[in-house]
C-alpha cells in the first residue's frame, strides 16, 4: 500500500513534508480543498457553455425543423444572417464560425450544383441536355438550397462542437427519462474510444515485431482495422462483465451523482432558437417569397 502515497500528486510543500514524515502504512490524500480540476470549456461561446447539453439538441431542432417547410432565398438568408449575428453576440465572430464550419459550405456548394442542374423545372429553359435541365425555377431553387443548407447545418454544427458526452448522458436520463442502461452503456462505449488510438498504435507495433504489415499499405490498414474491431469487441465484452459485477443493469433504480437541470438560461435559449425560424419564415411571407417546399414546383 505504500506505493499509493507516492503516486499521489503533491501540490504544496507542506504535503510533501507530511508525506516524508508519514509512516509507510499511511496513505496521504490530497485535501479536498486543494484538489483542483480546471473546468473544461464545452463551447467557445460563453452563452452555449451555460446551457444544458440536452437543450443544445432541442434548440438545434427548434431552429432547423421549421426551415424545411419553405425553400426560398429570403427565409434562408434571413435565418443565416440572424444566426451569424447571434453567434457573434454569443462570443464567436463570423469569421471563426465560417472557419469552424467549412465542410458545411462545401456541402452547400454540392447541393447548389445538384439542384441547379437537376432541380424541378419551371419558367424559362436556359439549357437542356439529357436529364440536365437548367431553368429559371431551378436556378432560384439552387440559390435557396445553398443558403438553406448553411442556415440549417451551421448553427447545429457549432452547438454540437465540444459537447461533453457525460453531461449529455446525465441529461438524457434525468430530463428525457431515456433508459439509463442504454444511455450509460452507450457512454461506456464512447469512453472506450480514447483507448482505440492507443490500441491502434500497440497493434501496429506488435504486428511489426512479428514481421506483418510491410506489404501493401491498403492491405495492412484493412487487416489492422479488422484487428482493432475484434480487439474492441473483446474489450467491450470484458467491460460488460465488469459493469455487471458493479451492479450495472440491475433492477433497482439508479441514483444520480451529477444533477442535470434545465435553468432559466435554457428557456431563453429555446425562445431565441424558435425566434430565428419564426422571423425568417415571416420575412418570406411578408416579402411574398414564401415557397412551400413540398409543392409541385
Amino acid at each position, binding site marked *: 500500500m505504500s506505493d499509493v502515497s507516492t503516486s499521489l500528486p503533491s501540490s504544496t510543500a507542506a504535503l510533501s513534508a507530511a508525506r516524508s514524515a508519514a509512516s509507510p502504512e499511511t496513505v496521504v490524500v490530497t485535501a479536498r480543498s486543494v484538489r483542483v480540476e480546471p473546468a473544461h470549456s464545452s463551447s467557445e461561446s460563453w452563452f452555449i457553455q451555460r446551457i444544458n447539453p440536452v437543450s443544445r439538441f432541442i434548440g438545434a431542432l427548434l431552429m432547423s425543423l421549421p426551415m424545411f417547410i419553405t425553400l426560398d432565398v429570403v427565409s434562408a438568408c434571413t435565418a443565416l444572417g440572424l444566426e451569424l449575428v447571434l453567434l457573434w453576440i454569443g462570443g464567436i465572430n463570423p469569421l471563426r464560425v465560417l472557419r469552424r464550419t467549412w465542410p458545411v459550405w462545401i*456541402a452547400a*456548394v454540392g447541393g447548389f450544383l445538384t*439542384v441547379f442542374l437537376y432541380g*424541378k423545372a419551371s419558367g424559362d429553359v436556359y439549357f437542356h441536355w439529357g436529364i440536365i435541365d437548367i431553368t429559371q425555377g431551378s436556378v432560384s431553387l439552387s440559390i435557396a*438550397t445553398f443558403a438553406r443548407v448553411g442556415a440549417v*447545418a451551421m448553427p447545429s454544427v457549432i452547438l454540437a462542437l465540444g459537447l461533453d458526452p457525460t453531461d449529455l448522458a446525465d441529461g438524457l436520463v434525468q430530463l428525457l427519462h431515456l433508459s439509463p442502461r442504454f444511455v450509460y452503456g452507450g457512454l461506456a462505449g464512447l469512453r472506450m474510444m480514447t483507448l482505440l488510438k492507443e490500441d491502434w498504435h500497440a497493434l501496429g507495433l506488435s504486428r511489426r515485431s512479428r514481421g506483418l504489415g510491410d506489404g501493401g499499405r491498403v492491405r495492412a490498414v484493412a487487416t489492422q482495422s479488422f484487428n482493432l474491431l*475484434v480487439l474492441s*469487441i473483446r474489450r467491450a*465484452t470484458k467491460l460488460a462483465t465488469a459493469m455487471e459485477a458493479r451492479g450495472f443493469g440491475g433492477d433497482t433504480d439508479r441514483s444520480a451523482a451529477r444533477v442535470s437541470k434545465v435553468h432559466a438560461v435554457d428557456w431563453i435559449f429555446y425562445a431565441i432558437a424558435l425566434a430565428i425560424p419564426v422571423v425568417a419564415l415571416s420575412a418570406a411571407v411578408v416579402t411574398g417569397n414564401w415557397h412551400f417546399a413540398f409543392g409541385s414546383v
Partner: protein
Amino acid sequence: MVSNIIDKHLPHSNKWRVIDIVVASIIAVASGVIFWAWDLVSTAPLALFAPVAPGFEGLLNGFWLFGGPLAAIIVRKPGAAFYAEILAAFLELTFGNQWGIGGSLIVGIVQGLFAEIGFAIFAYKVWNIGSTMLSGALAGVGCWLYYFFTNPGLGFLGQYGVIYLLTSIVSGVVLSGIVVWLLYKAIAATGVLDRFESGRTQVEV
C-alpha cells in the same frame, strides 16, 4: 456450408443483456468514426462529381448505412440496428461534419428505423445474409427519404430522385448487406462472439 439454424439448447432471447448494450455501443462507436471519416473523405468528391454524375451520391451512401445492420447481426436484439445507427450518427455529429444535426443525427434516426425493419419484418427470428441485405437496402431507402425531404428543390420521384433511390439501395445491399455479412462471419471466426448467439451458430447443426 454454415447453417444458420439456431441451436435448440440455447433459445433466442429478445431481452437485452448488459453485454449486448456495450458491444452494440462499441460497434456503433467504430462505425461512427468511419461515418465521420467518410464525411471528410467524400466532401470534395460529392461536391465535384454528384452534379456531373447522377447516382454518384447514392453509391457512396453505403458507408453511412452499415452501422445498424452490423450491430444487429452481431447482438441480435430488437432495436439493435436503430440504437447503433443513432449512436454512430451522434458521434459523427459531435466530431463535426458538413451536415449538422439534420444530415447526421436525424438521417441516422431515419436510417436506423429503416434498417431495423429488415429484421423486425421477420419478428427477429431470421438472422441471415438475406435479412442483412434487406436491412441494408431499407437503410438506403431511409437515406433517400431524408435526402429528398430536405432537398425539395429536387423531386422525390424525378429522374434524379429515382436514380438516387436505386443507387442508394444498391449501395446499401452491397456495403451494408453483403460486406457486413462477410465482416460478421470474419469476426465470428475469431471466437470473440462466443458469448453471443451470433457466435454460436457457426457450428453445423
